[in-house]
């Protein structure tokens, strides 16, 4: 009896350990695969070409700057939409809405998060982009801005859901203490509840932004796919092409092992490093604020 119990215990802890380590193993394997397929680029394409502003692989122009700027501008636009709207919605749900409203809104927002991005892209092509073209009098509605709007929409449920959990976890005593000092509802939210939930809200933002950077399908469908370097803010209203869309669109037609193939992997590597940087920054900030919070509560 005792023997089997300890065996069971041993097996289960082992199994859990293996699943835990496997996550790390997969990430490392993916990273090495990207390195193996992407790094030859540095030998095959001179750096001056790689960091030039022309992407035209058929004639040997492999400038990834337009793609980088495309990803950046679309993501930035999406973040500017998703962060205020997402946090605003989270505050409304957690702090202001009556209980019945909260019980409707929270699942609804989470449902929105499960919408396949192809569907959103479809809506973008059929509804949003003709609308924007007419509204803003643009030559085409397939622009970085269109992509930003849709990506913002995709990121909002992520931001709302995580930020709302964080706000909800702030102890009631904080709110009561602030209110008892004569703070208004809004002053309590802005100066006590939100700062107390800071690390969770920050995680929400980072995950939302991460979702936006990595999103492929929607942006490929609605941003117009023109690899042009964004040099002015006006670029927001012209077609762009992101790194993810480039990989998705071109990977199918390159010959394995060709220069073009290696460059696409190199772009993947760059994407990987960017999202790694976002995540590391986020957890560093969260870690720092958490140690501070622990000091406060001790």
């Amino acid at each position, binding site marked *: 009896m005792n023997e089997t119990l300890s065996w069971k215990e041993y097996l289960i802890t082992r199994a859990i350990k293996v699943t835990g380590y496997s996550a790390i193993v997969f990430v490392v394997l993916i990273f090495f695969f990207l390195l193996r397929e992407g790094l030859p680029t540095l030998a095959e394409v001179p750096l001056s070409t790689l960091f030039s502003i022309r992407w035209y692989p058929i004639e040997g122009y492999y400038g990834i700057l337009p793609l980088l700027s495309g990803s950046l501008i679309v993501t930035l636009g999406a973040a500017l939409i998703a962060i205020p709207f997402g946090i605003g919605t989270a505050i409304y749900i957690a702090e202001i809405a009556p209980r019945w409203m909260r019980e409707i809104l929270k699942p609804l927002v989470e449902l929105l998060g499960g919408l396949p991005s192809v569907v959103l892209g479809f809506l973008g092509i059929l509804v949003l982009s003709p609308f924007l073209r007419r509204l803003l009098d643009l030559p085409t509605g397939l622009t970085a801005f269109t992509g930003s709007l849709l990506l913002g929409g995709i990121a909002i449920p992520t931001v709302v859901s995580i930020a709302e959990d964080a706000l909800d976890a702030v102890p009631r005593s904080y709110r009561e203490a602030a209110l008892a000092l*004569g703070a208004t509802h809004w002053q309590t939210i802005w100066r006590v509840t939100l700062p107390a939930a800071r690390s969770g809200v920050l995680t929400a933002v980072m995950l939302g932004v991460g979702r936006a950077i990595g999103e492929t399908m929607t942006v490929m469908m609605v941003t117009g796919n023109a690899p042009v370097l964004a040099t002015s803010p006006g670029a927001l209203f012209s077609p762009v092409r992101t790194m993810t869309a480039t990989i998705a669109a071109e990977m199918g037609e390159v010959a394995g092992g060709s220069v073009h193939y290696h460059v696409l992997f190199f772009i993947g590597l760059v994407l990987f490093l960017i999202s790694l940087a976002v995540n590391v920054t986020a957890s560093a900030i969260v870690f720092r604020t958490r140690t501070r919070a622990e000091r406060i509560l001790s």
Partner: protein
Amino acid sequence: MVTRPMPDPKILIEHLTLHYSDGTESLNDINLAIPANAITVLFGPAGGGKSSLLRCINRLNDLADVKTLSGRILLDGENILDPKTDIIALRRKVGMVFARPVVLPLTIRGNLTYGLELAGERRRSRLDEAVERSLKQAALWDEVKDRLDDPASALSGGQQQRLCLARVLALQPEVILLDEPTSGLDPISTGKVEAALQELKKNYTIVLVPHSVQQAARTADYAAFFLQGKLIEYAPGQEIFTNPKDKRTEDYVMGRFG
């Protein structure tokens, strides 16, 4: 139940009845006159409605799920349960200290000036003056005067609770409500808080929910005994703890139940 006629009470509670939606702790027809410049203690076993009553006096109970609330609470003759009451102004006039010290994630100075800044005070000299005055009143000045810009979280539990008291005092309220302010403190810190309260009652109206009968007996000028939502007995402190009129009060004070 004995309610003594009292000339000019600071707070007059009339026929206050309160029920929560979930049917827990409630108050039944409470009548109570709370005098200025004294410590009035609300005591009794848990679930008797003491905290609820306290939270009605600064309308913090608005946050709770209240089913019915009737009766009046007159503060200087004005009914604060009136929906037209300016709750923000009321809460600046009626400060509250909670059972668990809740220091805001700011410096010591920041915690003290927080309420004043919310009220719109920006002048540095006024803020500094309020910091020193309130810390002295809460008997904390000597311990922290050289490190006002340290994080408040670095203070010990007893110091944090006195900081919370000072934070309330900085707003220069007229009434101070304390809900088991020393329940988590060691005897020395408790003694300091109680001594500070004795000093403060000269200028403020103090309503205290103590964490033990002993504390009630030590601090009360007036004491009200609550049992299951009813006010059983209300009398000057010396009387109620030495010669209670009601059998239930006597049993509780003697430690026969509770």
